[in-house]
């Protein structure tokens, strides 16, 4: 199997087959990266497509010898952050979770358990939405994409220590947002019981 770098070299020579292979190889990751940034399926789809289109049109800027994945991640991250900033201005709502995307055991778990999972998922998505771009970026890269501190350091052009503290701060912000939303949820449940 050819490496990403080899394929991309062929893409630069306008080899359509190589381009198709490259798209197929990275589309799942890019689609989910976009979704983790924006929390909206339709928007994630458009955003992921934009990533590939930007990649295609900026092939000439790629420096041979540089890891392709790092370059793609950098490009994708920039686009996702730009999009996230625009979104934050729009203040659009996070799309509601759709069951077809979730792997929920149906036979074994009681309905209450399903409901709880759904509620927790909604809390997570809303809590992520409250984060600033830098915090969301840190959470997505480290906790969702499982990037190492060194990879993030290279990608962001920051020292590892700075990256580490940014991640910690982002997690604390997310934790606070979850606690806040859980508090709202318990309050509304208590009010409902009354």
């Amino acid at each position, binding site marked *: 199997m050819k490496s990403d770098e080899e394929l991309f070299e062929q893409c630069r020579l306008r080899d*359509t087959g190589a*381009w*198709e292979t490259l*798209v*197929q190889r990275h*589309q*799942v990751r890019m*689609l*989910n990266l976009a*979704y*983790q940034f924006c929390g909206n*399926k339709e928007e*994630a*789809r458009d955003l*992921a*497509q934009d990533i*590939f*289109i930007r990649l*295609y049109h900026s092939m000439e800027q790629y420096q041979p010898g540089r890891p392709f994945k790092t370059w793609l991640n950098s490009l994708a991250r*920039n686009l996702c*952050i730009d999009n996230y*900033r625009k979104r*934050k201005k729009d203040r659009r709502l996070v799309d509601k*979770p*759709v069951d077809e*995307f*979730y792997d929920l055991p149906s036979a074994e778990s009681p309905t209450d358990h399903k409901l709880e*999972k759904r509620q*927790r*998922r909604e*809390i*997570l*998505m809303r809590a992520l939405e409250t984060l*600033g*771009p*830098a*915090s969301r*970026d840190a959470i997505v890269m480290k*906790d*969702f994409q499982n990037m190492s*501190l060194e990879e993030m350091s290279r990608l*962001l*052009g*920051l020292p590892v220590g700075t990256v*580490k*503290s940014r*991640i*910690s*701060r982002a*997690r*604390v912000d*997310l*934790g*606070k947002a*979850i*606690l806040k939303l859980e508090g709202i949820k318990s309050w509304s449940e208590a009010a409902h019981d009354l």
Partner: protein
Amino acid sequence: MICDRFRAVLSRYVRGELVEPEFGAAVEHEAICSECREAALLAWEAVEGGETVATTAPLLPLESLLARTTGSDCSYVELRVAEDLDEPLEVALRARIEDHLGGCASCRRMREILHELPAFYALYPVLKPDRAFTREILDRTIGPRPGFLEIVRTLWRRPEAVFEAAVACALVTVLIFGRSQPDYTVMADRAEQLVSEQLQKVVPERASVHGVRDVLAQTGTSVGDFLAPRDGHLRRRVDGVYTSAVKVSSWMERAGIDLRNGDYQALLSDLRGVLGPLGLYPKPRAIGEAPETGVEDDTKPRGKTDDSVPSQDAGTR
């Protein structure tokens, strides 16, 4: 724009107060300078949170500094607890953090929720791209696949493409069908037919032993030329023809059968026995029935003599 200038206008930039051409220059600079981009991100986040944009490090009060170093400050503890998720804290620092956690319910709750984060992440939906997704990307980059009419139009504009396409088709056809098994079967059947025709010419005319033998040899040669065997399958079939010819002539010599002596029925029966299992024996014909084609006459000059019976090796040409 240079970094210093960007930092100077950063506060107004993230608030959306910059106007052209400064705004354009700032956007351009942010796109190419990773450090300024990160600074802009943090500044933007600070503005979102209602803070002022700090251009220098904030001066902390002495109490705050002391609280941090002794581990009694909640925000400091929260950050350390978050760090602890990736790599364990130093023993001394951990002890101070645990001291704080022992008396601070909100920090304990924060620690719990931080430890629950992976479980929360696992609930985040995972998307799978469909074919349309990939197709759209390809359409928007390398363009859509040409339709039938478009192909025809292209060929019309560029006639030499027709020739190239024809050559390509011919090559593909040869590659796919050129050496297929059905073709060999047809050729082998044709070989059997040749043998049958030759035998039919000779046997009813009561040819001599030598005549039959010569005809079989000639048939074998012509079959070999016809087939030009190139692989094991054909070679076996042609070898079968030669073997049968040799068997028939040897048997006739051993038996001392002379067709002119009238032992015609015995010859037919024996021929059937030898050639039948090989599938080479001609269909039975009534005695005295006229042959379909020209008559083989043993007085005519023959192409081959007894010595010219091809060997098995010759048959593998």
